């Protein structure tokens, strides 16, 4: 287990304060945040390239904060991969073994088997500058793994690849991580990549760790800054009306469900949000026909309104929904095929069901 305790970093104008994080063994922990939020500085501090101002990094309960990078046993793959251009593929992969003065064949054989599993053994004698993007990626991974390090630090290593290849590497990384029982800390600014790869996700914005949780819990933003980073639009002021939540802007009352009670705020003036893909839209005139919604949906708090705009993405559609007698607008995201079934027409009234268990409270930054 890797534990980061109250780490403070000051590099030039960048400052990160009191970061505490636990990375469990044999998991992928993703540090997610926008570009320029200090993720790279953070991972470079964990690797030992930069010294923290204060705080500790513990690996298996041993304080490794003062240890130089070569003694931390953490393999690092930077964004540009940094393959040594003066060495061949084989020399790049063997570099770590040679640097450690290892001469036993068994270690070189293990490096060869990693290279074989990554399909790059056939390229051993090639100059690394002549490799394709995907081949370079494989060499960088093989080089990092060849030394037998159990912690792998990845600094947006797939960002230079095209979409198809990037997804191929997501699967590959998951497979390698499971096979070799690796602990991976990966940083990314890509939400899709973070949720695909991560078992745990920490949100890092402007040098501050906003939330750190399992992937499932990470779907729910804890504050407005994270909600804004996620691009969540459906955030409204709310108040208590007995045991129900009342959202004045939507003129909607939502009963409190068990998952909400867990985070129930005592304040009477708060903000609630819901993800655009958690809303359920259907045609109230043909609920069980074209819309194919389950019968439970009809018992949910529902808004009636119109679709005011549609934006088609690659695999889904984003729609803006305006409830009747309200100035508010809600963002809905549905799979492309559902859009075809829904037959969105101008002036046609549609129903929007709000599942209470999908509502989340938003705290001001710093509150819990």
């Amino acid at each position: 287990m890797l534990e980061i305790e109250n780490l403070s970093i000051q590099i030039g104008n960048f400052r990160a304060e009191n970061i505490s994080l636990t990375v469990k063994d044999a998991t992928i922990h993703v540090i997610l945040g926008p570009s320029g939020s200090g993720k790279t500085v953070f991972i470079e501090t964990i690797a030992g390239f930069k010294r923290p101002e204060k705080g500790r990094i513990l690996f298996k309960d041993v304080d490794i904060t003062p240890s130089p990078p070569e003694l931390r046993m953490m393999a690092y793959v930077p964004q540009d991969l940094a393959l040594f251009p003066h060495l061949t593929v084989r020399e790049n992969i063997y570099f770590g073994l040679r640097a450690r003065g290892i001469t036993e064949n068994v270690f070189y054989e293990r490096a060869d088997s990693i290279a074989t599993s990554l399909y790059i053994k056939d390229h051993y004698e090639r100059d690394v500058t002549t490799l394709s993007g995907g081949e370079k990626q494989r060499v960088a991974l093989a080089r990092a793994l060849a030394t037998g390090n159990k912690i792998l630090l990845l600094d947006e290593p797939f960002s230079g690849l095209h979409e198809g290849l990037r997804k191929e590497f997501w699967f590959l990384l998951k497979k390698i991580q499971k096979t070799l029982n690796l602990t991976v800390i990966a940083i990314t600014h890509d939400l899709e990549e973070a949720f695909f790869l991560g078992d745990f996700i920490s949100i890092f914005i402007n040098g501050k760790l906003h939330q750190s949780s399992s992937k499932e819990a990470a779907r729910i933003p804890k504050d407005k800054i994270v909600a804004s980073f996620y691009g969540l639009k459906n955030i409204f002021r709310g108040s208590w009306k007995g045991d129900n939540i009342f959202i004045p802007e939507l003129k909607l009352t939502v009963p409190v469900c068990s998952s909400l009670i867990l985070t129930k705020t005592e304040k009477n003036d708060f903000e609630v949000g819901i993800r655009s893909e958690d809303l359920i839209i259907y045609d109230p005139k043909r609920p069980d026909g074209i819309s194919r919604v389950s019968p439970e949906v009809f018992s949910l708090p529902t808004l009636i309104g119109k679709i005011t705009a549609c934006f088609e993405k690659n695999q889904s559609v984003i729609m803006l929904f305006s409830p009747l007698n309200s100035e508010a607008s809600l963002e809905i995201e549905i799979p492309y095929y559902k859009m075809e079934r829904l037959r969105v027409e101008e002036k046609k009234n549609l129903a929007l069901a709000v599942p209470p268990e999908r509502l989340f409270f938003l705290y001001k930054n710093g509150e819990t």
Partner: protein
Amino acid sequence: MARQMKGLDTVFKRIVIINAWGIFSIYTVLAFSLFYFLKPTISFEILTSSRTLYSLGLSIFAATSATLISMTLAVPAAYALSRYDFRLKSLVDAVLELPLVVSPAALGAMVLIFFNNPIGSWINEKTISFVFSVSGIVLAQLITTLGISVRLMKAVLDEVPVRYEYVARSLGASPAFTFYKVVLPICRRGILSSSILTWAKAFGEFGATITIAGSIPKKTETLPIAVFMRLAAADIEGAVVIIFISLAIGLGVLHLYKKLYYQRRLPDA
């Protein structure tokens, strides 16, 4: 409007190109004016004379020695300036500009004055004699090129992303192993091109050399000093021949430098 913009663009382009040709022509006129005093029969005699050949050999030897010492000292110093923050770094950095702001003659005089103080004269008498000797030429060239070598090497090292070193260290390499097995091989072309410029600068050094080592024919007379000595003796034909030798060597070396410089960019790995 677009036509007007295109017209302005063409005018600007012509002005800057004419400017480049103007500078080229200044040097070309100067070089061609040498032919006025070039007398083939005498020229060959001067070229093959033992005094000229000695000066040529001495210049090459001294410049090569000074470059080797200069680069050996400059590479680690440049690495320190490029990679680390240390106390009084900006002061160290500023002092390296000394050869650019102080004339070579003044630098030579500083060395000469140093050898006249008790420590300096002890070094000069008990170890290597620098004043009026070949060692003095090497020292003069070293003093005038060292700062420039560090500058050139710092520029080369600044171009090498530090992530190469990060990766090497994470793979278990010590800082020294990383320096010798990663940093130096990656910037080998940069080292070579910096060495060539340092050598060219040392080869043409005059002020500090004549101040420290004097101008003794067949002892401390390098090519630049030979030009000065022949001009002082009104031997213009002789000076012209030596200028031609210097020009040929200088242009050859600069051509080599440019070739290496343009190949220096790091491959996309």
